[in-house]
């Protein structure tokens, strides 16, 4: 998506004029594609026509403030909420409004906001719950070793109740539990929620490692724009249920609006301090 061209010529046969599918130019690598998805809670529309693409092997991120609709997007993808309109395709198959369990079997895991580990089960049992749909015992044992490799603390506390873990450890457990299903795509909902900056950094480092080493595609939803933009390859900015901007994270980091509204960088102006915000232009 180039910003420079300014205008687009429409005059002749419109179909030939431009790539009409937004989000991504190269469709071959699209692992997940949302088209015009609209979800609502009763009369309140939470997302209003979201189209986005997550490419295979990449980390994509959706940024947005409280209530922008980030979590709703993830819930709609994993089938917890059925969309009112639009379609969702995962690995080329339409999964719109399918049963969540089927979607998991299809290779998509959701790490919910606020961890949601099974508090009364042991750490190990939590992890095995993640592998519930799998039949390959050897594979499960191997993957258990892999996640213990990423998060050694979970091995140490494998027999403790998950509810006794710290917030950061629970987040690690939630991510590991998702990995145990051997998913092709992980939906990661605000892994930084309630964590210290140091712990957040650690978790993000491992998320990137998982992506690089396991080749797992990740769709990350975050309020911590700084972390997300550094970890991810491609980003979407969501506002009031609409995507207002999309680009590679590298380019997003350079945009004025992102700097001011998401990274908290702004020039202080003539007085050396500034309280007012410039108008959002999203360009």
């Amino acid at each position, binding site marked *: *998506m180039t*910003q420079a*061209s*300014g*205008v*687009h*010529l*429409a*005059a*002749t046969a*419109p*179909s030939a*004029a*431009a*790539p*009409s*599918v*937004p*989000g991504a130019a190269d469709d071959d690598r699209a692992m997940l594609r949302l*088209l*015009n998805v*609209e979800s609502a809670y009763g009369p309140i529309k939470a997302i*209003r*026509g*979201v*189209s*986005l693409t997550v490419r295979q092997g990449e980390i994509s991120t959706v940024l947005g403030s409280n209530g922008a609709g980030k979590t709703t997007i993830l819930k709609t993808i994993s089938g917890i909420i059925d969309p009112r*309109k*639009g*379609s969702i395709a995962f690995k080329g198959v339409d999964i719109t409004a399918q049963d969540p369990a089927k979607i998991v079997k299809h290779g998509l895991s959701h790490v919910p906001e606020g961890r949601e580990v099974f508090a009364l089960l042991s750490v190990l049992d939590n992890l095995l719950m993640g592998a519930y749909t799998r039949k390959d015992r050897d594979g499960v044992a191997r993957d258990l070793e892999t996640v213990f490799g990423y998060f050694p603390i979970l091995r140490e506390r494998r027999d403790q109740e998950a509810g006794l873990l710290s917030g950061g450890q629970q987040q690690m457990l939630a991510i590991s539990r998702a990995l145990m299903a051997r998913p092709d795509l992980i939906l990661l909902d605000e892994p930084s929620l309630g964590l210290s900056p140091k712990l957040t950094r650690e978790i993000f480092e491992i998320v990137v490692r998982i992506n690089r080493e396991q080749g797992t595609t990740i769709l990350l939803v975050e309020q911590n724009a700084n972390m997300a933009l550094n970890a991810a390859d491609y980003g*979407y900015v969501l506002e009031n249920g*609409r*995507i*207002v*901007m*999309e680009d590679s994270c590298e380019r997003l980091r350079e945009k004025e609006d992102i700097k001011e509204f998401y990274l908290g960088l702004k020039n202080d*102006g*003539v*007085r050396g301090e*500034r*309280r*007012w915000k410039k*108008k959002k*232009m*999203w*360009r």
Partner: protein
Amino acid sequence: MSNLWNFNTLRERSTVDLPGETIPALFWAGARLRTDQVWMRQKKLGLWRSWTWTQAAQQVEEIGNGLLSLGFAAGERASILSNTVVEWLLTDLAVLSCGGVSSGIYPTDAAPQVHYLCEDSDSVVIFVEDDEQLDKVLEVRDQLPRLRQIVVFDMDGLRTMQDPMVMSLDALRERGRQWSQAHPGALKARCDACQPDDLAILVYTSGTTGKPKGAMHRHRGLVYSVRGLSAVVPQDAQDERMAFLPLCHIVERVGGAYHSIYTGARLNFVENPQTIPENVREIAPTVFAAVPRVWEKLYSGVMIALKDSGWLQQATFAWGMGVGGRIVEQVLSGRPVGAWLKFQFILARLLVLNNVRKILGIHRARVLITGAAPISPDLIRWYLALGVPMFEAWGMTETCGAATSTPPGQIRPGSIGQAAPYNEVRIDPVTSEILVRGPNVFAGYLNLPDKTAEAIDAQGWLHTGDVGTVDAEGFYRITDRMKDIIITAGGKNITPSELENDLKFSPYITDAVVIGDRRPFLTAIIMIDQDNVEKFAQDREVPFSNYASLTRSAEVQQLIQDEVDRVNRSVARVEQIKKFFLLDTQLTAEDEELTPTMKLKRKLVEAKYAGPIESMYRSTT
């Protein structure tokens, strides 16, 4: 309750003729007469606050005395850089009461423009709304040696500010209170010394080409216009009006604020530009003046909401509007409305039209007034079909507001009405330009005698730059801006604004610029209405991720093509728009492409998008 067949509600109101030959004299006379009546309301943090005439007068007095304490001399200039808020008007009246000259600056202007306007107007004091506006002035104050004082209305975020040049409006009022004890009667003396021929306000034209020009208005012309307006706009102290257009613009300043000083109508200031529709619903103004953009927005809001409603509602609405439309036809052609039709209309109102009027907030409106830009006649018919009279007024900064208007009972969509009773209007026999003469015509452009001489000829006729016609009954019609008339390569004269208005009537098109001067055919640059086009895309599952990709999708291109085709069907072949392109950035008032009133600037757009325009003419298809 207004009905289209009964114009009794629109007769001139028996207002008390306030004495006074200057704007401040009118204000002080009004304040003495109306004392505890509420004059202004403003919504702040969700609550409507009100100002009585006495309270407003007291604050104007304090601000005025504060200005005197700063050594503000008669004839000196003050600029006001703020959105439309109560303080804007209070400050304006204080400056005028001191015998000073006030000049408004659009809050959307950037620092360099603020610099130009302060320098050109030779302002010694500038009033700013808040920290955001203050920063613009601080950025350029080194280049404004004549500027002595900056006064801030809202000090939020500036409590710790220590700067000898900056003070809050509250501090200025406090200074004024103390100063007036030592100098009682000084402000009144200054106000009484103000003469009708003194310069009162500077209104900068929006400057679609080149630098803005400061139109000078004297008290005499302003007071004359305000008195004259009463014959055109039937309003009195019982009326509720909205205040939301920029006060730097002549429409809100003279037609809104100053006319309300004279008539006593209440001014209701909206909370912010985003809450206009909601605030209008809350107030339900009885006289509602707005620019076509607002009418278009309200209309398309209803039409789009309708698409989401059930078939029964849609059918009832269509029937109701059909009945309303038949009444419009009867009334416009001067035929009486039959009893059966009246009965149907009352039923239609009960079933559906009253609700639509309530949703729009026009259910108490005796009259709607549109002006300041061309409007589609179909849009006027739509409001008439709801049973609310809509008048069109035409005028410009240089005519101090309306120069022609729709006479009550003789609505003719497409015509700008007859000459207002207080000025002469005629058509130049050679150029067909509309000329205006009268005491309301401005006193010239500040510092620009050449431009003034171009605008006002030796006989005192103002050359408006609008080209038009007049019929036997004195109804004027605008064909276009003189400089905008397109002569195609084939030699055909085409008036782009008619085509543009037809395009804008589409709920999917916000604004358009038609191009074709010295070209083989016509093309257009089109700005889409984001909300409505998004909804269209959603309903048809057209994928898009953001504004730019929305404008690029084939379906949206086709949608706009259909709208262009609709317009093309109604015009001759040479007047058809053969190609167009959609602006793919979402423009705001801060962008140079738009005027503060959100109109596309033709010349600027043509220059900025020269590349894409050229390629429309290059390709052969």
